[in-house]
């Protein structure tokens, strides 16, 4: 089992990005035979730490040791030759090639200048056998299940004499049975002499598989404990911390009449029977982990994924949602998570960005009135306190907060009645967040129903009039404002201790 001497060790590692201290003096020891779980909320520094170990990021300060010897990982290749393998959520497999070809990609065994296929097959079978799985090495990767693909991915790594395996959210795309199989493989590997760093959001599975649990928060190490000496509750408390420094301004604007009613909606993209209603001026928050199906619910309501079953009603009237155009017509709008890729037009200045979803309002006959466009956009920009330079400059030059407010202005301009916000405060600074909260209050004061998706749980709990907890494409719990603690929300979302809370 675990040897006492650390195999890989980080000492007081600091890594800064513009505006963020992603790692702030973190020390960590990874031992052979040990599964070391890394926990923390989004942005706590988990991925940065993994990237320091895999050579993607170089620390600004602090040291990395392998077997007690100081090493410098200049690039990912450097880390690979030292036996570090990283296993991401996205695969690096080539679907059109066979299992054996993938495992030996770029280094197929050769004999007299010809590929030695039987050696490649034998090696593949052996590597897979170490994981206690059997997959025909001649099968095309495209024909494998997601879990099998992951095993191939791992086999590929261990056939390269890997000694430290970093698993970054390995089960995000897996069902429970497949996750269990993966955990089995992980344990086998640990027993065979591998150190494993396991990063996950799912507390229940972390506690099922890990030997040691380390919690990060805001780039700082909160604590490292043996799994037996800690609990899910303790870990959650460490992840959240007790002090909430941020201030949330929430106004009660919810009225009685339902604006949006969703009845048993299903799609082929992970929405499994979702029902809820949002009243005029109400903020309904969707809590859940990444991949729980929150974004997919939003996609269904915005006409991006076909609704296979169920009804959507806006102001009591049933609406057909076959395209975003239909949704906008019905008064439903979506502010996507990635505003740069999916929201903003960098070839337009502020006004054209604001009016694009509601050009009808600035038309005189068949023509656009540029004067009216500018006047109305300017008024909205003043109301939302958008940087005045946006009036005649590309929105490219605006700060993240201002860009986000331009997006909000677009939907205000289009007379939206239901606004779905997907991670509206991601990647913007604290004061810009306050601005976004203020605008949300103005939206609800106008009677707009808001559906808020946020992985920032304190924010979600503080702003929402009600919170719906989403897991596996279903809403598993509703809670009024103040009913749910962050602690309980994290547990519900991650699937640990749900029974205590739901009771």
């Amino acid at each position, binding site marked *: 089992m675990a040897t006492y001497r650390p195999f890989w060790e980080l000492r007081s590692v600091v890594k800064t990005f513009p505006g963020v201290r992603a790692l702030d003096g973190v020390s960590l020891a990874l031992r052979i035979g040990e599964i070391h779980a890394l926990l923390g909320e989004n942005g706590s520094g988990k991925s940065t730490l993994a990237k320091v170990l895999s050579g993607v990021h170089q620390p600004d300060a602090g040291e990395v040791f392998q077997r007690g010897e100081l090493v410098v990982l200049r690039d990912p290749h450097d880390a690979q030759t030292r036996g570090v393998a990283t296993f991401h959520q996205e695969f690096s497999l080539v679907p059109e090639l066979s299992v054996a070809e993938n495992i030996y990609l770029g280094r197929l065994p050769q004999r007299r200048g010809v590929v030695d296929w039987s050696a490649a097959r034998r090696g593949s079978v052996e590597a897979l056998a170490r994981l206690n799985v059997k997959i025909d090495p001649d099968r095309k990767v495209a024909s494998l299940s997601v879990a099998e693909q992951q095993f191939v991915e791992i086999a590929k790594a261990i056939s390269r004499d890997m000694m430290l395996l970093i698993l970054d959210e390995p089960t995000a795309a897996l069902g429970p049975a497949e996750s269990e199989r993966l955990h089995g493989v992980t344990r086998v590997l640990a027993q065979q002499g591998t150190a494993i760093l396991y990063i996950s959001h799912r507390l229940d599975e972390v506690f099922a598989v890990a030997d040691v649990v380390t919690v990060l928060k805001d780039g700082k190490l909160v604590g490292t404990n043996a799994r037996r000496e800690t609990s899910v509750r303790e870990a959650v408390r460490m992840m959240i911390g007790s002090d909430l420094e941020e201030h949330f301004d929430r106004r009660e604007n919810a009225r009685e009449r339902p604006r949006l009613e969703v009845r048993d909606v299903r799609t082929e993209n992970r929405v499994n029977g979702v029902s809820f209603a949002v009243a005029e001026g109400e903020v309904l928050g969707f809590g859940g982990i990444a991949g729980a199906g929150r974004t997919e619910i939003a996609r269904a309501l915005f006409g991006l994924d076909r609704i296979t079953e169920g009804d959507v009603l806006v102001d009591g009237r049933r609406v057909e949602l076959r395209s975003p155009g239909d949704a906008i017509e019905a008064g439903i709008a979506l502010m996507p998570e990635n505003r740069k*890729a999916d929201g903003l037009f960098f070839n337009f200045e502020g006004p054209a960005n604001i009016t694009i979803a509601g*050009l009808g309002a600035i038309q005189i006959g068949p023509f656009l009135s540029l*004067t009216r466009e500018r006047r109305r956009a300017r008024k909205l920009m003043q109301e939302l306190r958008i940087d005045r330079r946006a009036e005649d400059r590309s929105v*490219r030059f605006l700060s993240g907060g201002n860009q986000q407010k331009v997006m909000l202005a677009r939907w205000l301009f289009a007379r939206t009645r239901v606004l779905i916000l997907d991670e509206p405060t991601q990647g913007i600074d604290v004061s810009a967040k306050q601005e976004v909260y203020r605008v949300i209050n103005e939206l609800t004061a106008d009677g707009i129903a808001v559906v808020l998706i946020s992985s920032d749980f304190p924010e979600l709990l503080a702003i929402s009039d009600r919170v719906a907890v989403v897991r596996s494409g279903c809403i598993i719990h509703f809670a009024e404002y103040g009913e749910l603690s962050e602690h309980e929300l994290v547990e519900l979302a991650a699937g640990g201790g749900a029974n205590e809370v739901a009771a």
Partner: protein
Amino acid sequence: MRERFADALRSQVVGPFLIMLAVATAMALSTDRFLLSQNLKNVGLQVAIVAIVAIGATIVILTAQIDLSSGSLVALTSVLLADIVKNAGLSVPLAALLMILMGAGLGLVNGFFSSYGRIPSFIFTLGTLAIFRGLAFQQTGGTPIFSVSPQLDPIFYGELGGLPLPFVYVVVLYALAWAFLIYTPRGRQIYAVGGNESAARLSGINVNRVRTEAFVIAGALSAVGGILLTARLDSGSPNYGQGLELMAIASAVIGGASLFGGQGNIFATLFGAFTIVIVQNGLNLHAVPSAWQNITLGAIIAVAVGVDMWRGEFARLLVRLWRRGRAAQDEARPTTSTSAEDDVQSRP
């Protein structure tokens, strides 16, 4: 407000205008025949067809697509028009109208398959480039149709209020295109689709439909070009319009339209078309063999596209060199802002 709009327009148009002026000056200095009124009139007549086809090229490029079939469509229009007028005896106005409808219909084919059919337009219109010209050859068995109709001549050589008709067409069509692109919702959506396809879709714009319409407009305008060419030469030939698609695309790109979509000004395209025709005319005056004319045109296109693609890198390089120079001058003062780098990434 009106001044500001004029400012924006000017900033996009000034560069291409200066390029045109520079090319014209070079030609005027290198040969005294360039400024002869007969030659200038020729340039004016020559530019009309390129300029009209270039409107369609610009609109398609604005949606981040490309239409390579326009030159072949000109040839197909030309032989069909000559055929139905001379051999089937249709009246010229009716025949011309039919040709414009056909152009729009073939544009619809281009647009439908490259948007709804998700075949990259570069490939699909490369296919129709071959198909349309093949159809043109098929129609005549490869031989041109001469002396089509005396009714054709006035379409090109006629005058309206003392102005040559090709000039009138260009002015009217450019004014319409400008009004369409700047002052109608569809025009705005064309820029939006080219600027950020995903954002356009999430703003409720029917992206496929907008793109298809752009190709329909381009097809109709190619047919107009084909009609004018047939009228000018009073003949229909499957060899007409060779390389015209490149000249049209080059006009748009020299005019500053980005092949990534969403950036471009229709009047700048007109200056781009003039630039190309002036270069061609000048090479003719210098008796440069046609092989070298093709090489020159190709090089101009390559450079213009290169400038479009490298604009960001080039500007960043200049900023870096400038910063290095400044840092060497005063090392004491720390550089504070990264906004200068952001500034230059935008395309003018």
